[in-house]
């Protein structure tokens, strides 16, 4: 089944994180988060998500380190996409990735 394959699972996770981050950004920024930014955010997630999963799942890197690197990496493209300063891009990256990470952690705590 495609969803169980490596590529399928990667894309599923990218789309899920993209959906959550898009919702967070739309709520935070309103109309300033438009169609172009939505598409940019998909590519940004494809840039970081599979690499983060590899670093965390395969290389065994610390979860906090991986999340921090993802947030830092996404700051510039997010800032460029939204046409804001890198500082504000970092804040948006922190917010979006923070919510995604919190949802994941929350699910684990509630179901453990």
């Amino acid at each position, binding site marked *: 089944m495609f969803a169980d*394959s*490596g*590529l399928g*699972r*990667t894309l*599923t*996770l*990218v789309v*899920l994180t993209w*959906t*959550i981050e898009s*919702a*967070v950004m*739309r*709520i935070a920024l*309103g*109309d300033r988060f438009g169609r*172009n930014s939505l*598409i*940019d955010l998909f*590519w*940004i*997630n*494809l*840039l*970081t*998500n*599979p*690499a983060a*999963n*590899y670093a*965390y*799942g*395969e*290389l*065994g890197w610390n979860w906090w380190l991986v999340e921090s690197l993802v947030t830092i990496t996404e700051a510039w*493209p997010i800032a*460029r*996409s939204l046409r804001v300063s890198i500082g504000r891009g970092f804040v948006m990256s922190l917010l979006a990735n923070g919510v*995604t990470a919190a*949802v*994941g*952690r929350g*699910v*684990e*705590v509630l*179901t*453990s």
Partner: protein
Amino acid sequence: MKRGSRRQLLIAGFGACLVSAPSLKADILSPGSKRVSHKMKFENIKEYEKNYKFFFLPLTRDEGLEWLKAQEEFGKSGVISVSGINPVAVAVTKGFFLVAVPRSMLDPDGGVSIEKLRQPPAGILKSERLVGQIRAVDVSDEDEFWTIYHVKIVDGKLQTGLIRHDEPKRRDQVKSNSFGSGGLALISAITAAGAIWSRFVVRSEA
């Protein structure tokens, strides 16, 4: 943004969170991993049951009937399944501990408060920190892991000697799985970087 569309977006986002929860959980359970059963056994606590009642810290988040029942079970068998214990509860107690409470210091219901187990007053004996829990391992690894301790109470001190501890396979001993492959991550990153770059260039030229 209009209030109605914001509300719709909020609902859609919440729905997405709910839908994605199992996959995110699977994501946290790192790729190619599976949940396992990890049990701890204290093989000889019966030797001391005449004078002491044994407790395991932590067991559940809340103190109450369920907690007391679980502790009773543990006190009888000396076996506890630690893989299902909430990691948050483990973090709160700063690890797993075995606690021996003299029967004379027990509450009338046969229990003892969590506070006394966490910071035992004189007379209550607390072990050194025990090994950590094993919750997930590589899919090719075993389904069940055991840690067995031998307990000794000498000179008013509770000692735990490690008899057996099943270690999961190290990462370099397991076969890499396809999902987390570096190749896929690299191809995704290069493709995405190219797409982002071209989109930004096209937009700045427009």
